[in-house]
């Protein structure tokens, strides 16, 4: 069956509007993806029929809400092939997921140890580790990258050593689109007994991940980048790691017993889910996952790869067009500059023509520093983008460049 992008677009009401009198071309998917009707309806349905607090109360609505939420946990568990539902923790987002691990490790890490990240990370996978290292006295190390935006793995064996507590890195770079050689890095980490965390912010919507096949300790997902609601993330952790890790936040839901002197913690996943969870978000995310699976993640990835290929070729014919991040293995992200123009100006003039792109540093200041640039404009594609939209984007970009030069 061929990929029916028009049928998919029909499922995304937000795409059918004009911006500044032009049809909206939404190319900021690496920042957040739009939501299909299935997600919007699941949330409406929840508040129309089932809303109640979860895991407490024996009444019917509470039971329905709890069942719906736990069904999503099971769906996420199956989606990434975790061993058990207890290994799936719902968080506020990837930033929260990584902070949960980094905070917990504060009780475990020794001052002589080190934490290894890469030069390609989002601020959310840099700052929590800097804070951990400041608190503990451990050292923070970076795997460097080359000028194509690929990690320089010849340094891997030297950087990841027997004192490495954890190696944390992203599967796919949000700023440049680089797909990192996950298994290779994980192998080295495991060989020296280091813990591992893979940030799946950008891989969630584009690639199938099997956490058992990777044998990774922690893996994170973001709902809103996977066509689901904002304010929700997933932290996968192996049971033995989650049991060893102290909880990040205290409160209701995460305890077994509470006296005024001492509390004991609940089993995973609840130990890491203090407070009332983002129930509506979790239910919406469940609908998003089902939607992704109904289209098929391999089909989505193939469509996006074709869009990336076409966009790279067609945009490169623009005089002075420069792609920042030209890794051999890349996801559907084009970070770019056009000689003689500033990315902010491009962003404004593209917006005037209905084209939504991101401009700036993309929360990756160290990457921009390495390329000695203040920022880029970035177009990123999703399952609903079309080849015609890339043509509109190119025409709008050419007009903007003509005005700016």
């Amino acid at each position, binding site marked *: 069956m061929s990929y029916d992008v028009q049928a998919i677009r029909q499922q995304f009401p937000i795409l059918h509007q004009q911006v500044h009198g032009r049809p909206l071309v939404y190319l900021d998917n690496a920042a957040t993806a739009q939501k299909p009707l299935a997600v919007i309806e699941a949330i409406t349905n929840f508040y129309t029929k089932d809303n109640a607090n979860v895991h407490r109360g024996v009444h019917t609505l509470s039971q329905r809400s709890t069942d719906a939420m736990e069904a999503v946990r099971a769906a996420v568990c199956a989606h990434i092939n975790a061993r058990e539902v207890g290994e799936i923790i719902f968080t506020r987002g990837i930033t929260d997921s990584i902070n949960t691990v980094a905070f917990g490790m504060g009780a475990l890490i020794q001052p002589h140890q080190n934490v290894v990240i890469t030069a390609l990370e989002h601020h959310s996978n840099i700052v929590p580790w800097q804070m951990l290292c400041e608190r503990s006295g451990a050292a923070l190390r970076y795997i460097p990258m080359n000028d194509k935006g690929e990690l320089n793995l010849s340094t891997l064996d030297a950087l990841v050593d027997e004192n490495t507590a954890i190696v944390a890195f992203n599967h796919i770079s949000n700023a440049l689109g680089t797909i990192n050689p996950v298994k290779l890095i994980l192998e080295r980490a495991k060989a020296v007994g280091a813990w591992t965390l893979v940030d799946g912010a950008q891989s969630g919507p584009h690639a199938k991940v099997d956490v058992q096949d990777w044998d990774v300790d922690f893996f994170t997902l973001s709902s809103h980048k996977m066509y689901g609601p904002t304010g929700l993330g997933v932290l996968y952790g192996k049971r033995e790691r989650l049991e060893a890790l102290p909880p990040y936040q205290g409160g209701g839901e995460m305890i077994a017993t509470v006296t005024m002197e001492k509390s004991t913690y609940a089993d995973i996943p609840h130990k890491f889910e203090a407070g009332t969870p983002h129930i509506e978000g979790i239910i919406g995310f469940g609908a998003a996952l089902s939607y992704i699976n109904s289209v098929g993640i391999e089909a989505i990835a193939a469509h996006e790869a074709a869009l990336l290929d076409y966009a790279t070729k067609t945009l490169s014919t623009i005089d002075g067009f420069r792609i920042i991040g030209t890794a051999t293995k890349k996801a559907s992200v084009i970070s770019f500059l056009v000689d003689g123009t500033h990315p902010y100006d491009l962003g404004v003039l593209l917006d005037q023509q209905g084209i939504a792109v991101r401009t700036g540093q993309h929360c990756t200041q160290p990457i921009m520093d390495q390329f000695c640039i*203040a920022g880029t404009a970035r177009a990123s594609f999703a399952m609903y983008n079309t080849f015609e939209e890339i043509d509109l984007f190119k025409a709008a970009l050419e007009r903007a460049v003509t005005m700016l030069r």
Partner: protein
Amino acid sequence: MPTIAEKQAVLIDEFTFFDEWMDKYNHIIEMGKALPVLDELDKNDDLLVQGCQSKVWLKAEKQGDCVRFWADADAIIAKGIVAMLIDVFDNQPAKEVAAADLGFLEEIGLKDHLSPTRANGLMSMIKQMKFYALAFGGAN
């Protein structure tokens, strides 16, 4: 020398000529391109306007009772916007600059059109120019 009010009236006239925002932007960009460049030595952190998304450098000098302004920016739309402000404020009495009401920004629709971040940048530029005017004796 036209007054601040007269300068604003001319800008309003120019901008009402354009219906489309792309054309208004084109005009802003042309004003930015026409603004004399600032000496590289003046593009230092001391002259950076705080609160702008792009880098905007603003230099001011007292000449008699008046204030002279020069500016530059790394992004051309920001440079065009500061060029409009310079067009209105440059070589005007410090007292007038400090007290001026910039109604033209609303009249040409720029204030409503800019995103909140950019509108903040615009306000920072105006504030900085008025601070200079106050410092140069525009307070009394």
